[in-house]
């Protein structure tokens, strides 16, 4: 009972907290809007409209359970299938909790795999208004948030204008993070978050670290001291019938390997006690019935009681109870009580027939 009320209280608190987060967000949006209005002639509509539509900030803290990534592919499953989480650590030391935002004006770039990057950002209102106010008034209209993704492979000192190439992505600023499909393994990348106006002019706010997508595929570069013939090489990989031309081979090989990796033939996708076998499919409609038999009784507390020649422990008041799995069939339970002085014996034999219609 106590636990329940505690839980309720907790959830009430968290609801409250959520509410305040939303409220805070809303107020922030409002003040920002006002600032922008003051700065620019007209309201920079696209820039902040999105906030109005979705006042719910994606708080960086715990996303709700079950809102797990959109991966439709199988998820390796846990040891504790079918288990709810019964124990929750209560807030041990009040007050302190993680900041929702840091407002430290940074954007961080992480590699996810050879084709995808992940970035997260956290930017203060001051920084936003600072940049907006530096934009000439006539260029402020229709600003929208974008990520500019630069390919900086081989660029020694990236300054913003010397990348090999770049592309832009429209983003929701409030999302706070984004997955970027660059589709190019083994390249160096850098991103900037900023505004872009309808004329295509870009106003960056902050720039990320540089990160590299992992390489993919078997290298063309061969070490002269360590060479194995192509034919043999593919064989030791367990791959045959690759085709004739070397280009054809490479392409096919790449496909095979890509398939193997993503299907988990290389990587078991098993990475701890919590995952191994596939979770059993939830059964549709079913009924299972088992039977048990309880034999219970009472004797003189000092008597000796045996059921089918096995001694039974009596409680201090002389009562006993026994519980058996009862499969199909006929059963006899010979119960014998012997008096403490061994002079008297009482025998009772209940019989049970268990069948299934």
């Amino acid at each position: 009972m106590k636990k329940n009320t505690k839980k309720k209280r907790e959830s009430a608190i968290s609801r409250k907290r959520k509410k305040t987060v939303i409220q805070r967000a809303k107020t922030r949006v409002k003040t920002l809007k006002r600032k922008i209005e003051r700065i620019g002639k007209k309201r920079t509509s696209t820039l902040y409209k999105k906030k109005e539509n979705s006042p719910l900030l994606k708080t960086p803290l715990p996303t709700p359970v079950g809102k797990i990534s959109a991966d439709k592919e199988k998820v390796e499953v846990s040891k504790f299938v079918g288990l709810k989480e019964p124990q929750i650590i209560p807030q041990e030391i009040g007050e302190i909790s993680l900041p929702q935002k840091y407002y430290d004006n940074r954007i961080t770039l992480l590699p996810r795999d050879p084709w995808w990057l992940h970035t997260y950002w956290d930017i203060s209102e001051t920084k936003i208004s600072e940049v907006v106010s530096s934009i000439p008034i006539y260029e402020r209209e229709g600003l929208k948030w974008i990520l500019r993704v630069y390919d900086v492979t081989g660029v020694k000192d990236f300054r913003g204008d010397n990348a090999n190439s770049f592309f832009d992505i429209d983003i929701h600023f409030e999302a706070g993070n984004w997955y970027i499909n660059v589709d190019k393994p083994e390249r160096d990348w850098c991103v900037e978050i900023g505004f872009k106006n309808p004329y295509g002019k870009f106003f960056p706010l902050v720039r990320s670290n540089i990160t590299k997508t992992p390489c993919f595929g078997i290298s063309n570069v061969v070490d002269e001291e360590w060479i194995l013939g192509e034919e043999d090489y593919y064989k030791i990989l367990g791959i045959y019938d690759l085709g004739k031309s070397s280009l054809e081979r490479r392409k096919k090989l790449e496909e095979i390997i890509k398939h193997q990796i993503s299907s988990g033939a290389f990587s078991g996708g098993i990475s701890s006690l919590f995952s191994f076998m596939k979770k059993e499919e939830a059964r549709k409609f079913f009924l299972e019935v088992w039977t048990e038999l309880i034999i219970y009784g009472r004797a003189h507390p000092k008597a000796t009681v045996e059921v089918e020649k096995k001694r039974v422990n009596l409680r201090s008041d002389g009562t006993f109870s026994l519980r058996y799995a009862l499969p199909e069939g006929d059963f006899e339970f010979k119960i014998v009580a012997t008096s403490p002085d061994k002079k008297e014996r009482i025998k009772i034999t209940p019989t049970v027939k268990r069948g299934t219609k």
Partner: protein
Amino acid sequence: MEKGYLALILHAHLPFVRHPEYEEFLEERWFFEALTETYIPLLEVFERLDNDRIDFCLTLNLSPTLCSMMDDQLLKERYVRYLDKMIELCEKEIERTRFSPSFHKLALMYYYRFRKTKDKFCYHYNQELLREFKKYQDKGFLEIITCAGTHGFLPLLMNKEAVKAQIQVGVSSYIKYFSSHPKGIWLPECGYFEGLDKFLKECGLKYFILETHGVLFSRPRPKFGVYSSYYTKRRIAVFGRDPESSKSVWSSIEGYPGDYNYREYYRDIGFDLDYDYIKPYISPCGVRIFTGIKYYKITGPTPYKEPYLPEEAKKKAAEHAGNFMFNREKQVEYLYSVLGRKPIIVAPYDAELFGHWWFEGIDWLQFLIRKIRYDQENIKLITPSRYLKLYPKNQAINPAPSSWGWKGYYEVWLNGSNDWVYPHLHRAQEAMVKLANKYKDSDGIKRRILNQMAREILLAQSSDWAFMMKTNTFSEYARKRTVVHLEHFYLLKNYLEKNFYNFEVLEDIERKDNLFPEIEFSIFQS
């Protein structure tokens, strides 16, 4: 004369789960179950092989968090309590199944297992499991390697001091328990990024293991595929996992563990029996859980399961061990003819696969080791460091960033379910580095606070939390753990900066998150 080698590598790890603030804590059972089903049975296998003078030549990673738990007095006491409770349940089960012979036999089997485990743990090993493992290492049969301090997924930590700290803690924890410097390291989740070898070198490590494509995609092309050792530019040896031998054990469909004669994991009396009867043995708040007592075999693709027959299953395990050995022989023969050097087949597995998931896996392992010793001459068991002694000259490569997680890269630990962790984690790490620099000569209470902050950061970094969020198993617990450790971190940071502290709170945190007692916050200095 052998034509090649097989390196069996077991990775034993659990996140640090210890809750003195509760009388009983469900998640501590992960540890108790792994002890009963995997770690202690492994020790028994070692003992038997040792008695028969068989050099089993196994590589075993015991993660620092697991070592901390094995060494923890409270958890030891709780483990004995757990065993007593299981024994009590088994006694009831023996009685309950008296008129169902096939289950009765199994109830007896479990009873004896738990009894034997308790005897071993309490009297034979004197509750000192690490000392037992060390014994076999000292005898030269076992090569124990280390892991990153709290199994943090290194490629996503971003902060070089944080990576270095994880590895350093892994090394110093190892030295504490095994009184020698570790030769190898198991990178958490085999997660590698370009430049990681530099940190390994700084910590004096000699080798590590990667997922297949971590080696296969190296630049330049690795001559021997995954069937040899290589050196990184900084001359740390690297080995790649063999996909073929992995699949036959790992895969629940094509692999051995899916055999119909083996024990069915998912049918457990915790779920099957009458609620009132089983209630004292399931979770403290009454939710049904796995108890480890299971009476059925896999039987087939049907929900109607038949009783488990241990003798039949054991026969299968022997058969599968023979099959595994035969396949490795053929593989080695072929590779030897092509490569011109004796190949090494690297077969790493999660230790908990054996015994816990795959109940017969421990038997399989023992059969395999014995068969390799007596039934053939083509392959020999080896550890990575022994292979390096045979082949000290190796091609230099630049290994490819990778992991052994689903899809082969970092996505398991970086996706919509867990990406919220990184902004917090990265900032906390940076704050830690700054403070470690700023207060570098501190002592007394400040030092205590900083040391505890280091522990909290490390605990928050465990890849297990992100993994549980991803697979949505115990995700609520995982989220709480991440948040709680970071909260502790910030609370202590506050104390430090304001030079004002609640001594009781500090002690309370120290008492709860008590791993790595010798830690020095200076590992975070840049």
